[in-house]
């Protein structure tokens, strides 16, 4: 059985941000609002040690597409809105979602409100009606009246919200999610279905991300996993993530 997963090589990753931005432009995710990040790809920054041995690690994070997905377990609707596909993607069906946020609450990599409790990221965001994640493209106020544009005008002129909206189709999710559903990384299933790689993989200038079938011993992803020491986030939660990290973001040993 296929189990899609991702290997992120931290030796190669420089924490530049291209994956997160590539994701935003592919999946048309909104801006941070109402305690939700809407960053399907994000970063967790860890600082350790003291000068001159101090280090800063910028760890790229995304949905772990867990084999034992707590979000799926928690989804109360039937058939489940959050579910595992045959190829191991933790998928979200927008139509069935009732917006209860049980998935968000259950996921060990998500928080209900990013502005509370000090979490750095949340895999799942909740697109509550009127939350304002596209307020940049809705604002009616010009910084110079009559001289500069407004979000509302830009949306009208481009006939799209966001204006850079990438149009694609998928049976389970919309390229811009409707209000009152949760949303998260779906491994760009609409791309994978066409034989393309997830956008965060192809936009990575360091070639640090490898996507593939972890159950296929011949896949590059599986080979990398076998050949390298690796770790996953929050192993103790028992979710069996399918995003694995190899290498080390920091090389420096000496001062």
């Amino acid at each position, binding site marked *: 059985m296929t189990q899609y997963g991702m290997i992120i090589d931290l030796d190669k990753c420089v924490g530049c941000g291209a994956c997160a931005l590539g994701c935003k432009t592919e999946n048309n995710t909104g801006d941070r609002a109402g305690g939700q990040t809407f960053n399907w790809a994000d970063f967790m920054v860890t600082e350790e040690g003291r000068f001159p041995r101090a280090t800063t690690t910028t760890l790229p994070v995304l949905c772990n597409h867990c084999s034992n997905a707590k979000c799926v377990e928690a989804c109360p609707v039937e058939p489940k809105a959050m579910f595992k596909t045959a190829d191991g993607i933790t998928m979200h069906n927008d139509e069935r979602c009732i917006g209860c946020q049980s998935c968000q609450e259950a996921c060990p990599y998500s928080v209900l409100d990013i502005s509370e409790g000090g979490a750095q990221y949340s895999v799942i965001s909740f697109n509550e009606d009127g939350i304002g994640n596209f307020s940049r493209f809705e604002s009616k106020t010009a910084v110079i009246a009559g001289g500069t544009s407004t979000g509302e005008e830009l949306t009208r002129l481009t006939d799209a919200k966001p204006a850079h909206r990438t149009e694609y189709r998928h049976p389970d999710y919309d390229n811009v999610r409707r209000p009152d559903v949760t949303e998260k990384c779906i491994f760009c299933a*609409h791309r994978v279905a066409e034989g393309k790689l997830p956008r965060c993989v192809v936009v990575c200038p360091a070639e640090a991300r490898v996507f593939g079938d972890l159950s296929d011993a011949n896949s590059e992803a599986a080979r990398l996993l076998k050949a390298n020491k690796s770790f996953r986030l929050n192993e103790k939660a028992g979710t069996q993530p399918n995003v694995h990290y190899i290498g080390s973001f920091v*090389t420096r040993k000496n001062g």
Partner: protein
Amino acid sequence: MRLRRRDFLKTAAAVGATALTTGPRLNALAAAPITASSGESKGRWVATTCQGCTTWCPLEVFVQDGRAVKVRGNRHSKQNDGVCCPRGHLGLAQVYDPDRVKVPLKRTNPVKGRGVDPKFVPITWDVALDTIADRMMDLRRNGEAHKYLLMRGRYTYNRDVIYDAMTKIFGSPNNISHSAICAEAEKFGPYYTEGLWDYRDYDMDKCKYLLVWGCDPVSSNRMVPSAIKRLSGIVKRGTLAVVDPKSQTSALKAQEWLPIKPGEDGALAGAIAHEILVNGKWNREFVGEFVDRKNLFVPGKVVDEAAFAEVHTSGLVKWWNLELKDRTAKWASKRTGLDAGQIKRVAKGLGEAAPNVAVWLGPGACMQVRGGYASMAIHALNGLLGAVDNEGGTLDKAHIPVLKMPKLDAYLDDVAKVKHKKIDQRGTKEFPALAKGKPGGGVVTNNAARGMLDADPYDIKMAIGYMNNFTFSCTGAQRWEEAMTKLPFYVHLTTNASEMTMFADIVLPCAMTTFEKWGWVKGKQNRYAYASLLQPVIDPVFDVRTEETEIPWLIAEKLAERGFTNLLDFYRNEYKDSDTGASAKDAKDFARVVTKYYLSPIWTTEKGKGGDLVGDWDEMVARGMWNSDPYPYKKRWGKFKTETSKFEFYSATLKKALTAHAGKHKTTVDDVLETCKYTARGQLAFIPHYEEPFRSGDPKEFPLVFVDHKSRLNREGRSANTTWFQEFKKVDPGDVSWDDVLKINPLDAKKYGIGDGDMVRVTSTTGSFELKVRLWEGVRPGVVTKCYGQGHWAYGAVAATEFGKIPRGINNNEIMPAEYDRLSGSTARNGGFTGIKLEKI
């Protein structure tokens, strides 16, 4: 409210089947129907170029229904291999910035100043252009054409049309580029050692030891995607060492971090050179050998010049005798704050891996007062190690077959032929600006504000600025606010209402680079030089024009209507479609014709020579770029463009330039150096040497050193109005998203009783500012650092806390005073020359 709704739904779901059917039905009302099929909707990738930094990456933009939706590197690019850095993606948020200027504007409030509402009102293009042309004709009529100033910011090589041709034919010497605010000191060292007034390319694929100095190549500095891709390879196969007072990403990836005291770079360079020589690790093939093969470089001992036979270099023994013989690691350790053992280890590592090594000279090492000599000292290491034009070393760029600007001479009338001095005071005794060996040959961008304020050499009556924002981007930014307040008539060509726009009398909305305009650039990365074009991948969102071509054409038409036809004649007669021979039909067509003209040798006269074979213009537009063949190793050995044709450790080239400058002012080189704030006298003036760092502010009053650095998300100060820049600001080590923080070492914080997140008053010689503090172990104690890019008080609703009034954070350029490396004309910036004091509020 939200939580209550969630709890209700959960409870309802738990009750049973009724709730389960209610849920979906309830939401289905709001849902757009989800189609059964899967995949990307129709669209096409269109080639263009990124201008988010000066790497200038060839790009492609995915266009759906006339909208730009995604960005990637150009598939044909041998520089970025089809993948761009984060800046490429950020461009989308700029072209679709809701705060863009959408129509021409006229100021109705005659009072100018920061925080003053200009009371802009919309006007037509025709009225705007008439107003501009009338002012220009007035100047010509009054014999004051030279009092017209053109300020250039971000450009493409179509710049000639507005920057050179328009200014010169109109009759002014004042075309002032932005170059010296971020670069020229970095070019100074390579020029006065190996005759290269340019950035270097670095052969990262073959490099075995990379010493990065004063920059973070995976964040900025001119070959970003190439460096991101290749940095880990160097760490794997060899050694990466980084010299920087703060730990940015390269320093985290490096095996060696040398957290140097700011401004002491010349001391470290001298010690590394000393160690290399004493231990006999110089590259024999490039540098040469002692005649009797015995190493006479003994610490403290003078060497007979005749004892060493140089090959491709000149002046090694002079350099040793005058400077290096006493520059021990122990001596440098005291100056730099680095461990002497580490200095020796790095020198040894470089020597052992030579010549497949590179010393990557960045702006932090030399964009400071007296930085020109640090620039020379650091780059000279490449000469010593035989790394210049060598495998794994530092390279020039291959030939790019493009045309030059057509000759102007026939279009210069009597007004235009009169010689006047330039407003930036270049070439005066205080500002040698020795670009390419010529006294006054380079621009002193930031000093134009002083020229304008002092009306020295004369007053400026009218200025046009394009894609520049000197009131934000120049150190001592407050002086620019004063200069702009004093300027009687200013026309700003811009995409956003930036800080400089707020001083404008006329605002002309411009096409967004990458997405909406024609243009072209030259570049190099990874041994391949290239020409890459920019084209309108979408129809402009607003009523905008291209600043470099369309707008000067429109102005030329208006000047012609008023009887001055030379400019329009030049544009019509000299820029012709290279296929049809036809002149441009109109302004819009002119933008395309000019681009086509410059690039034409690629598919006509030099078709296939030295690089990609491009069949015709259509193919050029489709592929967007031309790659050179790989740069040949050792290409310039024996024929460097220096006075001696050698790599000069004793710069005969600098001696000639400095002597000429002194002669022009009927004085001595020593007097020039004193005037320009350098400490060197005598022969030291002509060799790479150590100069004590210059600090603005008495260290007793201003005990900490402020260091400016760059953001990997900065698009030359223009991306702060995007939510994506703010959201992911945390990818700059030590920074905080949606904020602007002063990063200080906890040891210093303790001294001042400051905690993480506290507000402090920062005082430099320019003024006092309130900022939030972030405690960060990644910065050397005694140094405080802040990323450039925030502190906008205009630009848009995201960049500023309150547009026109309250900045988001503080612009670093208000904290740092206007100072210069006067030999290069460079503005002092990243090097850490500003003393500050901190007080907890």
